[in-house]
């Protein structure tokens, strides 16, 4: 529980002719964490197999299909490519995916060109709308020998018409009011063209854009309805094509998902030599396996042939073996905190269990309300159902909620109330009274002292393991002596010289153990303990907010039915917001107390996560 799983170092060396079989065995076993080889003069990095580029090409195609068809991995589908699909081959996948892709691409192209057509039609319709209702066949707008024409919009048309009729009799004006303004079409003697233009410009004439319609026949209205009909036909066709694609997606989704999984595995295999060392004839794989997998690996490798060198060895002092944490079921959810920060290194104590003990307690101490605890418990139970991927995270919060309920009993609080229906909830400590708050502050400091000393104690054992007992005694024991000295000076009636000499001793010990850095950090430890005041401070603000909500609502309950309803709304919304702030605050602050105050006493981290060759990370 306090140590990660034990690792064994493995070295495999063999002739290159066996490389493919070795890789395939390792890939199937899924137990070896391969240590990547660094290029050196003696041993070069291996080069990938030739098929790698073909495979990656196919992966790209399969993935593009996946996104084009909108296929998503659903969790219910099998985690592994089933064995009877072992007939899968890169070439087969490549061909099939190519044919699907051609099919899809031609459909997509068709859809695109049809969409373009709709767009074009729409822009023509926009132009046509300028002539809607004029009732002139569009072919009339063409070049005449004796006539000039103007079409567009203008203002104050009645006057305009009069003015035009004044200059010549050979004029015809068509006009129509529509939502674009006043549409107008003027046919006039070509000799009067310039004059007409002058008059038109006085009436803010703006010519219509006729680029798209000059070849159309019939009136604008006829053309509009024809184009609309055409559009709806095209839309039907597009829908049809999209449905066809949907059907393809349904039929092929399993193939595509399985193929992707298979190909990712194949690619990993064919690129594996990049992680090996090689000479002209031989390749060498170095890596780590769990102790328990030793025999299985040996058996498999022996099966391949005799000429393979296989050696197991214990990790050396300075070697950083990969980490597979080993914790019981409930506790392992808390490993999440290391994924977020940095995972423990191979030699140090795995503190997951301690966090399992202390994190929920600190969280509960801050939030500490029976009602809030039950509400958050329900919430997180539901969330765990909804988001099975974040199960570990919600497990943490569920345990933290239980602690919140527990502390709710200690503080005697139910949604901020200390009295429910005239019944006074018994409490050990009240957070809404001044004396209670002072007690709580003291309690927070005591929690801080315990927590930090727990950290120092773990640090002591870590140090003892890596640097021996005397180093541990000076580097970590010095802090204990320092605390005792301060305690004696401040809180006990013993003669002062005992306290001062202990203080001196502790400074000497720290100097010996951690150098000048240790001495400089002396004020820091009191800052650390002070930091636990947040346990009380954040908790009290949450209580006060709850009290404010309750009191406001209480006053509203006596003011008639409308205010009564508003009061209930206020209670609901207020407490929901307060719970949300409470969860966030309690979580972040307890996390911080662990990361900053607790971890700084013992934790180094920097471990590498055990990720065996052949185990695929989740494909989205």
């Amino acid at each position: 529980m306090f140590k990660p799983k034990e690792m064994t170092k493995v070295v495999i060396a063999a002739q290159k002719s066996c490389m493919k079989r070795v890789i395939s065995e390792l890939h199937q076993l899924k137990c070896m964490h391969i240590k990547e080889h660094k290029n050196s003069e003696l041993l070069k990095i291996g080069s990938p197999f030739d098929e790698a580029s073909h495979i990656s090409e196919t992966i790209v195609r399969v993935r593009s299909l996946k996104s084009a068809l909108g296929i998503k991995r659903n969790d219910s589908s099998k985690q592994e490519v089933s064995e009877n699909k072992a007939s899968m081959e890169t070439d087969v996948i490549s061909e099939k995916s190519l044919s699907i892709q051609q099919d899809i691409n031609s459909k997509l192209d068709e859809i695109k060109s049809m969409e373009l057509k709709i767009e074009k039609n729409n822009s023509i319709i926009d132009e046509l709308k300028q002539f809607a209702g004029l009732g002139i066949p569009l072919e009339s707008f063409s070049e005449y020998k004796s006539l000039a024409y103007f079409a567009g919009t203008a203002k104050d048309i009645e006057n305009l018409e009069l003015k035009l009729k004044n200059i010549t009799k050979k004029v015809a004006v068509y006009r129509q009011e529509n939502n674009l303004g006043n549409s107008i079409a003027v046919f006039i003697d070509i000799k009067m063209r310039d004059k007409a233009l002058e008059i038109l410009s006085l009436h803010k004439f703006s010519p219509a854009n006729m680029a798209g319609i000059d070849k159309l026949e019939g009136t604008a209205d006829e053309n509009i309805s024809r184009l609309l009909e055409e559009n709806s036909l095209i839309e039907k066709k597009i829908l049809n094509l999209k449905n066809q694609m949907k059907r393809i997606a349904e039929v092929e989704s399993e193939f595509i998902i399985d193929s992707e999984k298979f190909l990712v595995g194949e690619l990993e295999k064919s690129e594996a030599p990049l992680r090996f060392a090689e000479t002209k004839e031989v390749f060498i794989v170095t890596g780590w396996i769990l102790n328990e997998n030793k025999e299985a690996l040996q058996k498999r490798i022996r099966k391949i042939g005799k000429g393979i060198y296989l050696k197991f060895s214990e990790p050396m002092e300075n070697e950083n073996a990969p980490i597979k944490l080993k914790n019981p079921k409930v506790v392992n959810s808390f490993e999440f905190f290391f994924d977020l920060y940095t995972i423990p290194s191979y030699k140090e104590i795995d503190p997951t269990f301690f966090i399992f003990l202390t994190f929920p307690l600190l969280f509960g101490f801050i939030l500490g309300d029976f009602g809030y605890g039950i509400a958050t418990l329900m919430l997180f139970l539901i969330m765990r159902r909804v988001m099975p991927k974040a199960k570990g995270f919600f497990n943490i919060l569920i345990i933290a909620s239980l602690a919140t309920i527990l502390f709710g009993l200690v503080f005697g609080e139910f949604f901020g109330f200390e009295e429910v229906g005239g019944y006074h909830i018994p409490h050990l400590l009240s957070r809404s009274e001044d004396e209670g708050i002072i007690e709580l502050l003291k309690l927070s400091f005591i929690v801080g002292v315990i927590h930090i000393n727990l950290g120092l104690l773990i640090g002591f054992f870590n140090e003892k393991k890596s640097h021996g007992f005397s180093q541990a005694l000076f580097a970590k024991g010095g802090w204990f002596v320092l605390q005792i000295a301060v305690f004696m000076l401040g809180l006990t009636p013993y003669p002062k010289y005992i306290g001062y000499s202990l203080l001196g001793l502790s400074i000497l010990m720290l100097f010996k153990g951690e150098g000048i850095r240790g001495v400089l950090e002396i004020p820091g430890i009191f800052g650390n303990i002070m930091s636990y005041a947040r346990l009380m401070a954040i908790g009290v603000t949450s209580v006060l907010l709850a009290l404010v909500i309750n009191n406001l609502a209480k006053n509203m309950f006596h003011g008639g039915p409308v205010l009564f309803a508003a009061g209930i709304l206020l209670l609901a919304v207020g407490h929901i917001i307060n719970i949300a702030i409470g969860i966030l605050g309690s979580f972040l602050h307890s996390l911080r107390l662990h990361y900053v105050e607790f971890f700084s006493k013992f934790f180094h981290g920097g471990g590498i996560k055990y990720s065996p060759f052949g185990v695929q990370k989740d494909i989205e």
Partner: protein
Amino acid sequence: MVEITTSMVAISSAVAIATSAFAAAWAEKNIAVAGVGAMAEKEELFGKVLILTVIPETIVLFGFVIAYLILGLAKGG
């Protein structure tokens, strides 16, 4: 000795918490800005950025404790 009135005690307590809260907020703001920038480059840094961001929080707690002690003056004196 000059007599300290209750209101003066209240005001000094408020100044203690307000200035330290402002200081903490200002410090955190600067760190968080840099942190978010770093996270945009490398998302795994979340844990470390979180720690760096919350370090100055202790400032406001110091202020809080001092404010509380000052308020104690009002009751005691």
